[in-house]
C-alpha cells in the first residue's frame, strides 16, 4: 500500500482541475442576465464558456500532469477535447448569429464596435487552423518537433485572445470565476511551454511528454 499522500495526490489534482473547469460554468448558470435571453442565445453563450473551460485541460493533458492516464489515453483525450472545443466554438458563433446576425457579421469582418469581438475571432481562426493542421498532419509530413512548435505557437495565440475576449465581455460569466479561469489558463499554458521546452530545436527533453509522436 503506497503512503497516504501519494494516494491522495492524484485525487486532489483531479478535484482541483474539475473545480477549475466546472465552477465558472456553474457560476455563469446563476447569471441574472439569463432571464432576458432566449434558449438559443443562452446556449451560444455557454458554448463559448465551455470551450474556454475545456481549454484549461489541453496543456495539462499535453504534458501529462493529469494522473492515472496512460500516454495513449491522454493523447486521445486531448484530441477529443480539442474536437469538442471546435464544435463548441462553431455552436457559439451559429447561436450568436441566430440571435443577432448583424452583430456577428460585424465581428467576423473585424468591423465591430466592441474590441472583444476581434479577440474572439482571432482565437477562433487560430483554433480552426489548429484543427486543420491536425486533420492534415498525416498528409503533410511535419517533423514532430516542428509540429509541436507550430501547435504550441497557435495555442499561445488562442489562450490570450480567448482571455482578453472573455474578460472584456459584460456577459453571463461571473467576474471572479472568469478572472480565475483566465489566470489558470495562462499559468497552465506557460508551465506546459516551459516544461516541454518547446522552443528547443534538438535534444534535451526534460520530461517525457504525454503526447508522443513516433519518430
Amino acid at each position, binding site marked *: 500500500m503506497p503512503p497516504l499522500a501519494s494516494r491522495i495526490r492524484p485525487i486532489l489534482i483531479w478535484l482541483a482541475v474539475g473545480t477549475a473547469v466546472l465552477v465558472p460554468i456553474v457560476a455563469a448558470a446563476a447569471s441574472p*442576465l439569463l*432571464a*432576458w*435571453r*432566449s434558449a438559443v442565445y443562452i446556449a451560444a453563450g455557454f458554448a463559448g464558456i465551455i470551450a474556454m473551460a475545456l481549454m484549461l485541460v489541453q496543456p495539462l493533458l499535453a504534458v501529462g500532469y493529469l494522473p492515472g492516464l496512460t500516454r495513449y489515453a491522454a493523447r486521445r483525450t486531448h484530441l477529443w477535447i480539442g474536437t469538442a472545443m471546435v464544435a463548441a466554438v462553431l455552436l457559439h458563433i451559429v447561436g*450568436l448569429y441566430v*440571435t*443577432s446576425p*448583424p*452583430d456577428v457579421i*460585424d465581428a467576423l469582418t473585424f*468591423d*465591430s*464596435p*466592441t*474590441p*472583444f*469581438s476581434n479577440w474572439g475571432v482571432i482565437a477562433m481562426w487560430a483554433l480552426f487552423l489548429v484543427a486543420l493542421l491536425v486533420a492534415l498532419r498525416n498528409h503533410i509530413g511535419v517533423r514532430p518537433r516542428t509540429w509541436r512548435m507550430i501547435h504550441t505557437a497557435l495555442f499561445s495565440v488562442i489562450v490570450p485572445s480567448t482571455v482578453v475576449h472573455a*474578460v*472584456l*465581455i*459584460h*456577459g453571463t460569466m461571473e467576474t471572479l470565476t472568469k478572472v480565475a479561469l483566465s489566470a489558470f489558463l495562462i499559468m497552465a499554458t506557460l508551465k506546459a511551454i516551459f516544461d516541454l521546452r518547446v522552443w528547443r530545436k534538438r535534444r534535451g527533453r526534460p520530461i517525457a511528454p504525454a503526447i508522443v509522436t513516433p519518430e
Partner: protein
Amino acid sequence: MTTTLMNRRHLIAAGASAIATGMSGPFVPANAQGLVPTRSMRGGSNNYRPGAPIVDKIGGGGFWMTGTVRRTGDGAPLAGRRIQIWAHTTEGYESDPQSHGATLTDENGVFRLEMPQIVPAFGQPHGHLAYDSGDFETVFLRPVMASVKQTSLEAHFVLKPV
C-alpha cells in the same frame, strides 16, 4: 450634460470610443468653425427597423433615453425631429418590434423617451438611436452604459443638412 462611454471594461477602447463619440456633446469644440456633424457609430444600425412608431413610451418603461438634436455650424437646436430608439431590454431583443419606438424633439431640440431597462447583450449594455428622416444626413448611434445599474442613457446628434 455628459456622455460617458467609458467604463473600466472599456479602457482599452477608450481611444476608439472617444473618436467614435467625439462628435457628440462635450467633446465638440465650440470653436469658430462651429459644430461638426455627428458620425454614425460602428454597429449603430444593427437590428434597425425603419419606421418605428412614435410612442409615449416603449413597453413598461422605467429607463430613460435622452439627448439633444442640433444642426451643424451654429448648433441651433432642431425641434420636431424624429429619433428612433431600440435596445435589448428586460422586455425584448433588439430585433423585436416591441423594443422599437420613436419620439420627437421639443423646441429646445431635446428628446426623452421612457423605455424598459437596458440589459447587457452582445457583451455591452448599450442602446441604439437613429435619425433618418431625410432632411439631414442619416446618423446611427450606439451609446454604451458605464454601468448596468444605470437607469438612463444619453446620446446627442449634430445633424448636417442633406
